[in-house]
């Protein structure tokens, strides 16, 4: 009964006019960002984040979450029509989506991926609703040692699993943590690495960091390289999107398998939607009786990954909301947003802020229904977005970045930080250092230090506390396994073969989700 009450509470929050409006706005902006290749979800969320400063935290989060799952819906459009993934999570959709478009079945592919997206998302939301409170209840037993271990595992997994080079990923995590330590130390009130700048007392701005490293650096690398699309409008008429009976029959099980795999990988730190989509495609191909159809326009090859990445989008919220430990860079950004709005994420969130928690989750239903409505009849509109020339797009994006940075605190210091992090982001591209682990380290670093120092006080300086406590010891052991496995595998892979180009790109981009 209490459960139904919570659902009711959630809907009453999510269905308020303001929240529906911002949910709609988020889904709309997300689709837009997803459709346009070269504009990532991280850059988009950090760019649009200042718009939410003046909103209630719940409303702000509903909108930002809408952007997050909206991009995955929109991202399939560019994959199918241009063979260019709108977001990394949609990369594998290119493999069969683009051949379908070339066969004149682009409309069918767009329609069916929207259905798969909705199915996967619904699956994810149900799991999120059922499991988050259970995990949070259990996590009330966690102490500082457990939290430190969990965060360490998240960072190690995120920086090594999906990365080409484990060392580079780890190095970026460490650099991110160091940047996160700038400002006043909460345990001793010492001001660290601020070099006398009063504005740095509060630390480096998350917004400026994300916009610099993901937004500005991306633009620097894309100028003069992105070409505007050329699309055949015939394939996109409403009459051309009707799937055949064979398409529908073939879609059910791939969708179900994709959604299950996506839900699982969404909750794990370091994996997330890109890996989920990639693996579910591999599974479909493996178990298919006609694997030769794959890569030539097999509908299973778009249904499974699109269900998987959308399910993962939703279940990624489970560790973030129940433990306060984000599994990916985007979730770290969400966590940062929560903290900036003064909400402390953690196992107490559900009981102390039930309106926020249940309202947010129920808004996912609202958002997904909106996306369904937005995507099917309006496919033609989204496709036209693909034809905006880049030379108009990038100065506009830069302007929004600058205004956003300035208005988050009305100080030019934030714009200077965007410049600094834009430069850092550009250097990182040159040296092929990944950006996502840096952001994750930046958000988790100060929390880790806090928990580590507290664990040390509580154990009276005994480092073995991380291995004596059973839960913490288990997590530490898993972390060690991930670390050893990743170093070993990256060594052997490098020695044995150079992976095919597509897979490298996918692996490189995977943590960007």
């Amino acid at each position: 009964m209490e459960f139904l009450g919570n659902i009711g509470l959630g809907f009453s929050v999510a269905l308020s006019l303001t929240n529906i409006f911002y949910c709609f706005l988020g889904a709309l902006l997300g689709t837009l960002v997803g459709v346009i290749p070269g504009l990532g979800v991280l850059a988009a969320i950090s760019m649009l984040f200042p718009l939410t400063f003046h909103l209630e935290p719940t409303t702000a989060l509903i909108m930002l979450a809408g952007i997050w799952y909206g991009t995955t819906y929109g991202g399939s459009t560019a994959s199918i029509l241009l063979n260019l993934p709108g977001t990394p999570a949609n990369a594998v959709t290119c493999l069969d989506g683009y051949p379908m478009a070339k066969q004149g079945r682009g409309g069918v592919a767009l329609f069916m991926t929207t259905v798969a997206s909705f199915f996967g998302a619904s699956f994810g939301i149900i799991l999120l609703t059922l499991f988050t409170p259970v995990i949070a209840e259990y996590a009330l037993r966690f102490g500082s040692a457990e939290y430190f271990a969990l965060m360490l595992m998240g960072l190690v997994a995120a920086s090594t699993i999906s990365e080409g080079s484990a060392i580079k990923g780890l190095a970026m995590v460490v650099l991110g943590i160091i940047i996160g330590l700038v400002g006043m130390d909460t345990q001793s009130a010492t001001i660290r690495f601020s070099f006398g700048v009063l504005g740095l007392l509060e630390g480096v701005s998350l917004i400026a960091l994300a916009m610099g490293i993901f937004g500005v650096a991306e633009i620097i690398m894309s100028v003069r390289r992105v070409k505007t699309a050329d699309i055949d409008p015939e394939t996109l008429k409403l009459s051309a999107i009707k799937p055949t009976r064979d398409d529908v029959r073939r879609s059910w099980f791939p969708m179900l398998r994709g959604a299950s795999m996506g839900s699982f990988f969404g909750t794990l730190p370091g994996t997330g939607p890109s890996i989920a989509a990639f693996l579910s495609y591999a599974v479909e191909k493996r178990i298919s009786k006609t694997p030769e159809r794959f890569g030539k326009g097999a509908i299973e090859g778009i249904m499974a990954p699109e269900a998987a990445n959308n399910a993962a989008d939703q279940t990624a919220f489970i560790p973030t909301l129940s433990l306060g430990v984000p599994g990916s860079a985007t979730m770290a950004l969400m966590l940062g947003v929560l903290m900036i709005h003064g909400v402390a994420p953690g196992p107490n969130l559900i009981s102390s802020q039930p309106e926020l928690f249940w309202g947010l989750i129920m808004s996912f239903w609202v958002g997904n229904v909106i996306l369904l409505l937005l995507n099917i009849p309006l496919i033609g509109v989204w496709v036209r977005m693909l034809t905006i020339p880049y030379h108009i797009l990038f100065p506009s994006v830069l302007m929004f970045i600058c205004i956003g940075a300035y208005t988050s605190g009305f100080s030019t210091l934030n714009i200077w930080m965007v410049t600094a992090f834009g430069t850092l982001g550009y250097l990182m591209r040159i040296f092929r250092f990944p950006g996502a682990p840096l952001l994750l380290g930046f958000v988790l670093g100060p929390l880790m230090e806090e928990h580590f120092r507290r664990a040390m006080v509580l154990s009276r300086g005994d480092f073995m506390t991380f291995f004596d406590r059973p839960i913490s010891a288990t997590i530490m052991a898993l972390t060690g396994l991930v670390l050893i496995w990743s170093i070993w595998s990256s060594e052997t892979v490098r020695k044995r073969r150079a992976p095919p180009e597509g897979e490298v790109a996918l692996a490189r981009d995977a943590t960007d989700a």
Partner: protein
Amino acid sequence: MKSILTAALMAVGLTQPLAAQDFPSGPVTIIVPYSPSGNTDVFTRHLAPYLEEQWGQPVVIDNRPGGGSMVGTAQAAQAKPDGHTLLITTSAFVTAPAIQDALPFDPREDLTPVANVGHVSYILVTNGDSEFNTLEEFIDASKKAPKFAATAGLGTTTHFAIEKFIADSGADVDVVHFKGGGPAVVSILSNETDIYGSSVSSAGENLKNGKVKALAVLGNERIDALPDVPSTGELGFPDLEIKQWVGVFAPAGTDPAIIRKLNADVNTALKNEAFVATVTPLDWTLRESTPEGFAEQVDAELNKWKALAVKQGIKK
């Protein structure tokens, strides 16, 4: 020519009183150096409409959390001293300077106290299932095996409340800092720490459903919200009169006439029955004050906590 001169003279002569009479001539920003939805923020948000009503100008609340309230306080210290930027903060204003060297402002020089508006009491809480039921049992147990006390952060009033309790009771307790009252309460729930000086509102639901239990009220009198919980005064610690107060400050250099007007307007708002009815259930005890009285109190407390910090050796 003569009339211009007269007008100029009048203008000069009238400027001072006019400034206070015309105040406020635009929106007033109140800096709250804590996150939204915290104790202080909620109090300020309840208060703001009653000030708007008197001033006929919008009151904007600007949350500037960080550094245990010192970030927002530093920002207020640098604001233009025209009364249009104010600070509403807690007794952290007098406790934090006791342990922080490198403060970017001087609490005595850079901000002028306007009004002390009220306080909340602290209660010492422990896990609902813990073995001790009285404060005495806790003190005795700690002498056999040292215990841990949670605080809402270094230099907060909860931190000093615990340090004063340790100094006066001789309990063997190690202090562990958390980031805010919420995580500190969670640490009590998870048995990670053993005692925490909490406000009634942050213990909230957990106190009602028995997940945490109150051992004592810090102070010499019991409180209405928990009539069965003894005060530390009754238990033989008469000097543990520690409250978290909330006060209004203005940047130093603000016209004294404006300070007096602000003080009067705040006191008027505090008497509004509707306001009293909203904050009393949150365990707020409201009070009237004068700028001079509040300034003396601030000065005395700055000295008192500094002395305690030195005595307890908590200066890093």
